[in-house]
């Protein structure tokens, strides 16, 4: 019997693999007056952009599909890979469909990339998005509302529709339904990982990077319906949470290599921006304030988010428990400061809690996985047989 999910997975894969953004170009043809607003990881308030008649597009670099020729000359050798491939994509014209690009405050490298973008593409709008690190609504919340209003103002200057509360409410509602569909998919992965491979879920979720929320929700729902029809059966694999890949994405074959090593990835932080907020964002009152409050109060723990007096790693241990995971794999991009500076603290917390863990680094264009396969296989077997990482 053929796989009922093969069609939707193929469509998702095509969207992910085609770096010339065919869905975005199609959207632009259908909406000649609409702006296309790209953004770098991790998070920007997508409903704000959709509410202004624009299409938010997540930019995850060039992956392993592009040779870096000019991009390398803009960054030192000790800088991660995603800014190089993003510059390369820009210089190749692959990102020409983007009218504006937002650079969120995740790390210095993305900030610098924003500056370079402004110099390289002076005709395009390039905006730095300062996300709050103070989580008091009266301070950080107010700041973030002003920041969103500033972004909205800049987009209007470029031809976007003015921000209207009702349009924002509707966009928030569409984003809520998309996130609910993704949450349902994440739940299915945790309860029946043999039914949904993490690599497939990765493609289906990442395809949403270039789609309007409602269109992406439909795709996720179609995938969910299809995998529920599968004749799947349980496999005795090790359940792992994978963390560290919230910005630069690992090569797809690396995710497959981990699966082939006997790991069920039951939780991860791939494309974290699409799942950054837990639960629904209420849109009844002041919707822009609701967006701000949701980020402050229900934003996911990640390396670039200040957690004040809270204990580093507590959030991760909570995720391990919630997903009934046997262990954690740290998969951070080489030279990713936020992930790699956080890692020792997270490892310490896991060790203290008796959760087995292992770590490796990758670049988005890594082509050889033998060493990682060896490591993941040894980790998987050690956890499965001896209940420890080594």
């Amino acid at each position, binding site marked *: 019997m053929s796989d009922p999910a093969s069609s939707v997975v193929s469509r998702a894969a095509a969207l992910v693999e085609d770096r010339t953004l065919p869905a975005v170009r199609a959207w632009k043809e259908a909406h000649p007056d609409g702006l296309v607003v790209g953004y770098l990881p991790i998070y920007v308030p997508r409903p704000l952009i959709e509410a202004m008649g624009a299409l938010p597009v997540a930019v995850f670099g060039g992956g392993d599909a592009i040779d870096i020729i000019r991009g390398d000359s803009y960054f030192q050798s000790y800088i991660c890979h995603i800014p190089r491939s993003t510059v390369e994509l820009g210089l190749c014209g692959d990102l020409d469909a983007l009218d504006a690009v937002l650079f969120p405050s995740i790390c210095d490298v993305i900030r610098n990339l924003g500056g370079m973008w402004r110099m390289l593409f002076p005709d395009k709008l390039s905006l730095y998005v300062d996300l709050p690190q103070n989580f008091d609504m009266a301070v950080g919340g107010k700041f973030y509302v002003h920041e969103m209003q500033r972004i909205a103002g800049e987009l209007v200057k470029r031809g976007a529709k003015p921000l209207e509360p009702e349009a924002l409410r509707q966009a928030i509602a569409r984003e809520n339904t998309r996130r609910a569909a993704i949450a349902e998919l994440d739940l299915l992965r945790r309860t029946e990982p043999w039914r949904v491979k993490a690599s497939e879920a990765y493609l289906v979720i990442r395809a949403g990077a270039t789609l309007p929320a409602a269109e992406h929700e439909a795709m996720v729902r179609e995938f969910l319906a299809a995998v529920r029809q599968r004749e799947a059966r*349980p496999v005795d*694999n090790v359940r792992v949470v994978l963390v560290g890949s919230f910005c630069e994405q690992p090569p797809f074959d690396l995710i497959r290599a981990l699966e082939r*090593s006997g790991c069920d990835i039951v939780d991860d932080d791939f494309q974290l921006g699409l799942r950054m907020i837990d639960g629904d964002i209420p849109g009844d009152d002041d919707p822009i304030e609701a967006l701000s409050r949701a980020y402050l109060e229900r934003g996911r723990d990640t390396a670039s988010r200040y957690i004040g007096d809270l204990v580093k790693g507590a959030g991760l241990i909570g995720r391990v428990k919630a997903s009934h995971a046997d262990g954690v794999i740290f998969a951070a991009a080489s030279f990713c400061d936020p992930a790699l500076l956080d890692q020792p603290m997270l490892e310490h917390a896991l060790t203290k809690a008796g959760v087995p863990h292992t770590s490796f680094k990758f670049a988005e264009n890594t082509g050889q996985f033998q060493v990682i396969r*060896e490591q993941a*296989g040894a980790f998987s*077997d050690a956890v499965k*047989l001896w209940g420890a990482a080594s």
Partner: protein
Amino acid sequence: MQLSLGIDAGSSAIKVAVVKSNAGEDVELLATVVQRIRRRNVFDVVKATYEEACIRAKVDAKDLCYVASTGDVDAVEFATGHFYGMTTHARGALFLVPEARAVLDIGALHARAIRMDERGKVLGHRMTSQCASGTGQFLENIARYLGVPLEDVGQLSRDSGVKEEVSSVCAVLAETDVINMVSRGLTAGDILRGIHISIAGRLVRLLRSAGAEGMVALTGGLALDTGLVSVLCDQLSKEQNKAKKPLPPLTARSHELSLFAGAIGAGILGAYRHDQLAKRGRLGVVTAQLGGAA
């Protein structure tokens, strides 16, 4: 006592072992079967080998508590679970050579030195790099160029008294060396001996880099190559004389069932894992698959 089955899906052959054990202890080997893949569909070969092993072991598939795969995970669609090759070779080698505390797995595409404890738990390992010049596939290619059947390689090499090495750095350079040797009129046996010396040197270095000590069990297809085993044992015994400082003792031993170490280890670990799942109340994960899904 439980019945379990291990399937080692290698790049050139499928090996299956059926074992009876008490949660991976007190192991009795009931049957071993190997089938070369050649140009057949790998899924068909896996199924045929699995069925043949069940028949030879006089075991009904539905009585198996765990079907464990190792090697190519995608080739065995009906496995209960998968174990990594390193883990299964360690456990299988321990069954075949109980005093071993290290394993040298010499397969078709790579070689791997593994340190382990008395339970077969892997403590460390080293693997050959990308180049295939130290592996079975390379030797098989050379044997084919020389027109020598694989089963004759070991004896021809042992009969040779020549000590001429070929390059151990790269398969391309090694093949160039072989062409030169042929044009210089060396016999097939002398050439094969030279290749064995080269591969063995590489394997000894691999064992030392992995920190192996004591008895080394040889596994994988090349463990049955008597010419290579002879040269390897010889190099290990003479190694001390050449060393500037004393080295930890190393002795190597092959076993007639070395080829099945991965499959045997998978079968034993499957039974052990089944027992662990039962103790943790997680047997539900595997019960849905029992009954010979192939």
